[in-house]
């Protein structure tokens, strides 16, 4: 087995965040990531589609973080953006939005599910997430920027979600949710923080290596792909 490839699946660049894609990509590469997903909030999209710098060792994936309060509008936004992005993230934060996101198999990740007095998940939603293969996003930015009671609250929400995710076998994605290059963290430090916050070593590793890889391979069908489970292995003249 080679060295694992690390991904950071939620990074915000200008005009949503502060720094440009090039700066974020250069720093993430320096930190040892193999790829980042540029996921600007859908209410702050740039006028034109940004050109993504990519080399063969480092890739910038096209992503989006949808912000929408109304579930039916959210579903239509998902339909609108699904074809053009590799990673589709929903910014949760209310019961209806969380539910709409987790019950839609076209969504990849649900970020920030917590809302007042609730961690954002329950057994019904966790089951739906497992069935539709929607990952729960664990964002580092709120954790590293808050102190005291606020961080205590975030950590206990994280633990509650973690228990549910373990029971119903929901996948997790660790991301920096960086608004500027000072919010980016290297993979090893992300892992250390995740382990201190209650994740097991293998869970944390999976959350920044295999789960992101699976999301990408699901959304970028290999040549010959027809639908789930059906694939043309050898091209030939059959008729």
């Amino acid at each position, binding site marked *: 087995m080679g060295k694992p490839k690390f991904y950071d699946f939620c990074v915000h660049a200008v005009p949503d965040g502060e720094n440009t894609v090039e700066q974020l990509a*250069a720093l993430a590469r320096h930190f040892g990531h193999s790829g980042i997903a540029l996921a600007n909030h859908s209410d702050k999209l740039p006028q034109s589609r940004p050109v993504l710098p990519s080399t063969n060792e480092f890739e910038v994936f096209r992503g989006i973080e949808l912000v929408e309060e109304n579930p039916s509008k959210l579903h239509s936004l998902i339909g609108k953006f699904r074809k053009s992005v590799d990673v589709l993230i929903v910014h949760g934060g209310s019961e209806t939005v969380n539910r709409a996101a987790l019950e839609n198999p076209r969504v990849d990740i649900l970020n920030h599910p917590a809302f007042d007095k609730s961690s954002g998940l329950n057994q019904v939603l966790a089951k739906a997430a497992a069935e539709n293969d929607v990952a729960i996003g664990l964002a580092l930015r709120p954790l590293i920027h808050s102190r005291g009671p606020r961080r205590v609250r975030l950590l206990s929400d994280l633990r509650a979600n973690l228990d549910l995710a373990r029971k119903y076998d929901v996948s997790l994605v660790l991301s920096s949710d960086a608004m500027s290059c000072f*919010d980016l963290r290297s993979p090893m*430090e992300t892992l250390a923080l995740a382990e201190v916050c209650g994740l097991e070593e293998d869970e944390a590793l999976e959350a920044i290596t295999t789960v992101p890889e699976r999301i990408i391979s699901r959304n970028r069908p290999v040549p010959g792909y027809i639908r789930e489970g059906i694939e043309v292995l050898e091209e030939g003249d059959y008729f």
Partner: protein
Amino acid sequence: MKRLLPSLRAKKRYLAFELISEEPVSRGDLVKEVMSSASSLLGDVTTSECDIKVLGFEDWKGIIQCSHTKVKETRASLTTLTRVNGKRATLHVLGASGTVKRATEKFLQNCTAFEPEIKIKPRTAEE
């Protein structure tokens, strides 16, 4: 006072790090921030077990000492460092080693390859 026998001394790990920040920071400010972010994340009891010390810091690079059983906790607490002296900063651990000499040789002396990126960051943030 008589020095402890080598076999009785606490085992250490030395973390080589680089600091990426908006403005140059002094060692004193960095030490203050490292200790406060550690005690905020881990609590005073675990922080004392970690035995964190900033040994040297100059030219954006330095070495932090910690207990050899608490490397993970130390790294996690360094991850939560966001500001030094009110200016935004990130601490990136380059690697861990059992001796200061090896940590310096392995991680600090030949990292000229990363130089441009380290230099770019402070400038870009001010723009």
